[in-house]
């Protein structure tokens, strides 16, 4: 009895998730593949094109991608009993996907700088001209969601991005590259996902992470079952497992903010109540995805 999972969790995390699941469900073997969301999706697309998708379960970065797959009819709906303990904004009403954790995007800066920003608006400061890095929505799903969230905010909007552009912010590559640029001091300020900065800081990287006043955008590492799943039963128990109290404790241990209500936060994070999440709707984001990318490319002159 095997279950195949594709996940974009970091290696060690993926291993722990799988181990814990197998311990809880003896008799089910889990085959898993870990890779960046882009590569995983490319692989999955090729498998679908060739008529033989391999995974039963996806556990990948963002809801927008899954929303797209749901609309194409590639996912199976499953109303998990655990969903009751979650904010309805965090799962698809039809049960196509359920969020498992909150990965927020905030501001990171190199401790070698003089002024510490506290809000998104601070990055518009002309003093920071040429010193900001952020991931590009053309390459990163999280960055696309971040873009959709910030431009959907009535105070920030596209104006904010226009101003960042005129402040020579560099919006290239993914989160990893952005973080390195900040840590290396090449661009001392950046927008980046929380755990990268917080974990590395704990190990001594010269960086500081800020949850801006306006709130943070977030991706949720949702879990979903493919419509072609060969082992539906095990897939459903996997979904239940990651959403369960036990699964969410694991998330917490790994250093992420669990999506389930009433959980704590990992070390180095402010209290859950103090983290302000900005509003976000995956369906709208999916609908605007191409337009957003095009507009972004135009503003930032990316080719």
């Amino acid at each position, binding site marked *: 009895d095997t279950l195949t999972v594709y996940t974009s969790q970091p290696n060690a995390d993926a291993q722990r998730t799988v181990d814990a699941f197998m311990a809880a469900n003896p008799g089910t073997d889990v*085959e898993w593949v870990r890779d960046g969301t*882009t590569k995983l999706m490319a692989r999955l697309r090729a498998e679908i094109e060739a008529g033989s998708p391999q995974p039963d379960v996806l556990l990948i970065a963002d809801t*927008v991608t899954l929303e797209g797959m749901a609309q194409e009819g590639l996912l199976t709906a499953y109303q998990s009993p655990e969903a009751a303990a979650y904010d309805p904004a965090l799962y698809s009403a039809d049960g196509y996907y359920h969020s498992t954790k909150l990965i927020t995007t905030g501001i990171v800066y190199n401790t070698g700088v003089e002024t510490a920003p506290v809000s998104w608006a601070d990055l518009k400061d002309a003093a920071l001209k040429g010193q900001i890095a952020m991931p590009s929505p053309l390459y990163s*799903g999280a960055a696309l969601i971040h873009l959709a969230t910030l431009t959907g905010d009535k105070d920030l909007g596209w104006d904010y991005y226009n101003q960042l552009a005129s402040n020579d912010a560099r919006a290239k590559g993914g989160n990893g590259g952005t973080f390195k640029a900040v*840590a*290396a001091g090449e661009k001392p300020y950046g927008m980046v996902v929380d755990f990268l900065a917080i974990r590395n800081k704990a190990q001594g990287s010269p960086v500081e992470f800020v949850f801006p006043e306006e709130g943070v955008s977030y991706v949720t590492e949702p879990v979903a079952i493919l419509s072609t799943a060969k082992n539906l039963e095990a897939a459903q128990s996997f979904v239940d497992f990651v959403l369960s109290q036990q699964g969410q404790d694991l998330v917490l241990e790994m250093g992420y903010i669990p999506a389930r209500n009433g959980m704590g936060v990992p070390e180095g994070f402010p209290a859950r109540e103090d983290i302000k999440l900005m509003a976000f709707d995956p369906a709208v984001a999916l609908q605007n995805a191409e337009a957003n990318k095009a507009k972004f490319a135009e503003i930032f002159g990316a*080719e």
Partner: protein
Amino acid sequence: MQSGIRFGGSRSEDRLLACVLLIAIAVTLTPVLRLFVEGITVGDQLSLGRITDVLSKPSTHSALRHSLFTAGLGTLVSLVIGGGFAFLVALTDLRGKGALVFCLMIPMMIPPQITALSWTQIMGPSSVLLRTLGMAPPLGAPQPLYSAGGIILLLGVQHTSIVFLTLRANLRAIPQDVVEAARISGVRGLRLWWQIVLPLCLPGLMAGIAITFVTALGNFGIPAMLGIPAGYSTLPTLIYQKLAGLGPAVLGEVAVLAMLIGAVAILGIVLQRICQARQVVHLVGAVSRPLEIPLGRLRLPVEVGLWLTVTAILVLPLLGLLATSLVPAYGVPLRPDTVTLASWQEALFRQPMTARAFQNSFLLSIGAAAVLMAICVPLAWLMDRHPTRLARLFDSLVDLPYALPGVVLAIAMILLLIKLPFTEATLYGTIWIIFLAYLARFLAVMFRPIQASLRQLDPAMNEAAQSVGATLFQRVRTIILPLSAPSAAAGAILVFLTAFNELTVSALLWSSGTETLGVVIFNLDDSGETVMASALAMSIVLVVVALMAAVQLSARRLPKGVVPWQT
């Protein structure tokens, strides 16, 4: 123009050619064909709509321009460095050749991403080196390598060994007396190189340039690390960007872009062929010793120059890599109190994947090199003797799988092999799909150098063996293979080194248990474990160096000229 048709062949040769050619075509061209089908169908229907659509986008145009520009100039850089080294090392009385060659092989061994990483580390504001020199740019200063120039420089450095290895094998075949004849006619200095040595090694040089160009064209790691931050996209990064997009149309678009890269590569190869058409140079009865031209008073300055170059292109980035692997977290400056081997320990001994990956990569790359050599030696030789139309067509297309970005080839392999026709079996998820992908990808790398050297082979060598009754198999084994051994070894070494830390193909093809080293490094880096990634990359370099040393020990039992760093 000489047609290249020589008689005295036999039916067994025709049969063998057909057989080997079929294998080679099945291995290399079917994935490409499958991809082509993907590009020209929408749904189940033939349509050119997607092609015109993708080709008319300005982003495609600029990426194409950038690709041509960086690959072209990058090749030039490799040519200057690698070619210069090859000439000096193979033909002159330099001292310490072995060490020089040894060092020159190393850039090939470092995955391109890592090369780019280490260079950005030593050139950026947090560079330990620049900081100690007091030359570090201020925080926020632009990284000079994030530019077209940076890409060109690093592509050039990365592929130096390719030009070097292919050319060196060829230079060794130049008979001494031909050059002596020129010297006694009063030819001196550059003229000797330009008018005698260069034309004689042209096949090797051209082969080197062609492979380098194609490699540079398909390189993803360097433009990804340096180009994406600069907003400078090449075709491979554009493909990556497309893959990051959403929706079912992605694969088709990617296929079209991949075909575009393929077209450029073929164009390059055809161009090379046209330039070379008249240049069938058989080294008539070459039994003489290889050359050793005295450099005279220039020797010391040349040696110093070469070693400085080696330091710049090898030692500095390696030091950067080493420094990164020794700190507890990325960005922590390297000081006596921060040095730790923790990540080495973690990467090498805690992660169970690492040992597996070493084993997989080792077997895959050795296996690919061996199988490819077995295919390419007879193939190149037979194709030279019987240039049938099919053989010529194949000759212009071999480079395709190598030119395509690895991701694309991987997609093609998945499309092709996930369901084997007529069976329930699948290769997908096994190590064999990676192996087949490697065969497809690296055939050109093995084939071109061998082809270049066999073109020069005096046909009488084979005829003499025929006249004593040696069968085809015996001739290939005892005459053709040893005579092309230096080039075949160059090819095998190139294949081994590139496959050993190959990333982009295996990235989509691995599954648990079949990880390769490249995948492990990438995953570590991608999960933010840059320090561990550096440690692993560094340990790969050490392992390969150890392997090279082992080869060196057995060098005396191998045919002459096979071990490149053995002079």
